[in-house]
């Protein structure tokens, strides 16, 4: 009997689990545009993210040059940093940092015990939570007010839609260059993570909408925080399953959780608005350089979109020196970690 890892859909599930973490960051876009940002996200994921991910999937092989290894390491570091930042956004402060560290340690323990089944179980649990939460909320109050699409304030939510749309399919993250090679004849698998993650985000949006309809609450309730923790935990496990050194990834995730919950709190906004789209642009741009034909065009459009997200979401110059230091150290630190990792792997 084939193990889970040998199933064609397992890689899709792993990457989809990473996309689930977007449920934790869905409240602000909903407030700005209802379902409009989710629709834009789905379009970006379907037209650009998945094709780019499929191109990465087809050429998936270990990096041979230092540049390829650096791009792959940057993708992994960005993914871990995004998860840590999303959690810090849900639960800021030292208590949140401690919880974030705990999430990474627990996910590492799960990966050590039964790597494949832990990811599978967490992903199923996360999907069930999102669907049940949406259904239960719907019974309480249909979520129409919060979900009503507003297309006019697109400049407020489009950066999030682009970045998250690319992330849902792991496009440009070099994520697909890690882990076991996909079985032959599985070229459609990259559709799976984007679809699963979209369903999870929709469930979270319906839940938030019902809660808003019932009592005007925009802040996350304990159930939503629990779902976010579960999603980030599942994503943390998935990120470790797909990397060659789970302990190292967990260590990085825990350290970044402490950084974003403490001295580097001001770096969260900059990571989400600047460093993440910049990293996506670098990943997709490098991919475009190595491809030919239509795949190159799609990857180039992905690069351009990531740059548009960066330009639209530019948070402006930090207001104080400590904020500037936190924002700069976050970016420089991530680049340094990715570069060092690539150089060490080259030896």
């Amino acid at each position, binding site marked *: 009997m084939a193990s889970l890892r040998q199933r064609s859909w397992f890689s899709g599930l792993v990457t989809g689990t990473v996309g689930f973490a977007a449920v934790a960051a869905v409240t602000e876009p909903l407030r700005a545009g209802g379902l409009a940002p989710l629709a834009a996200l789905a379009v970006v994921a379907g037209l650009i993210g998945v094709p780019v991910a499929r191109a990465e999937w087809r050429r998936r092989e270990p990096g041979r040059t230092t540049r390829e290894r650096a791009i792959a390491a940057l993708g992994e570091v960005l993914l871990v940093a995004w998860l840590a930042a999303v959690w810090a956004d849900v639960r800021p402060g030292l208590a949140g940092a401690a919880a974030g560290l705990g999430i990474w340690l627990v996910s590492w323990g799960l990966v050590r015990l039964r790597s494949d089944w832990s990811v599978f179980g967490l992903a199923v649990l996360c999907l069930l939570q999102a669907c049940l939460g949406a259904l239960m909320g719907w019974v309480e*109050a249909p979520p129409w007010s919060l979900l009503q699409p507003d297309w006019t304030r697109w400049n407020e939510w489009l950066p999030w839609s682009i970045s998250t749309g690319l992330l849902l399919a792991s496009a440009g993250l070099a994520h697909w260059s890690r882990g076991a090679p996909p079985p032959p004849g599985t070229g459609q698998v990259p*559709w799976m993570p984007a*679809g699963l993650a979209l369903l999870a985000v*929709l469930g979270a949006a319906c839940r938030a909408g019902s809660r808003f309809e019932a009592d005007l609450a925009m802040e996350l309730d304990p159930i939503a925080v629990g779902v976010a923790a579960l999603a980030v935990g599942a994503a943390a496990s998935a990120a470790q399953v797909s990397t060659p050194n789970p302990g190292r990834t967990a260590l990085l995730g825990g350290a970044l959780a402490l950084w974003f919950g403490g001295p580097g709190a001001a770096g969260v906004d900059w990571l989400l608005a600047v460093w993440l789209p910049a990293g996506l642009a670098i990943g997709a741009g490098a991919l475009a350089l190595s491809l030919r034909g239509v795949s190159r065009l799609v990857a180039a459009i992905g690069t351009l979109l990531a740059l548009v997200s960066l330009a639209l979401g530019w948070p402006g110059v930090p207001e104080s020196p400590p904020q500037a230091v936190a924002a700069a150290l976050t970016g420089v630190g991530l680049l340094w970690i990715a570069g060092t990792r690539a150089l060490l792997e080259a030896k």
Partner: protein
Amino acid sequence: MIAVVTLLVGLAHASIELETPPARGERTVVVLQELDGRPRGGQTVRVVHRPGLAGEREVAIGITDGLGRVRWTPEIAGVAEVRAGDETLRLHVAWPGTPIDTAVVLVLLAVAGLGAATWGAVGRNPRRR
């Protein structure tokens, strides 16, 4: 029938009540009373539709008469907040039916998510068989 919905805010000195549950396009009456039951007249009453969301809109309902009453016909369905002086009342203006545009986008997104996940799980690329 009075007092379908009532909210007393902390140390507030008045209460806002509605004669009938608000629904889009249907007239109701907002009643403003002191805590001891005396009507509060001459108070401007406003409503904020979709508070805190995109498309937030504030509309003046009118000024209460000597009985503390003012007529109101909601034009926008969904969550709203009635304000009179320092008092506020959060309420829900009933939708006349399912909002079609929102429902269509929601269904399309759900179908897209489900379809993509299913296609990714069971689909095959013939060129790579």
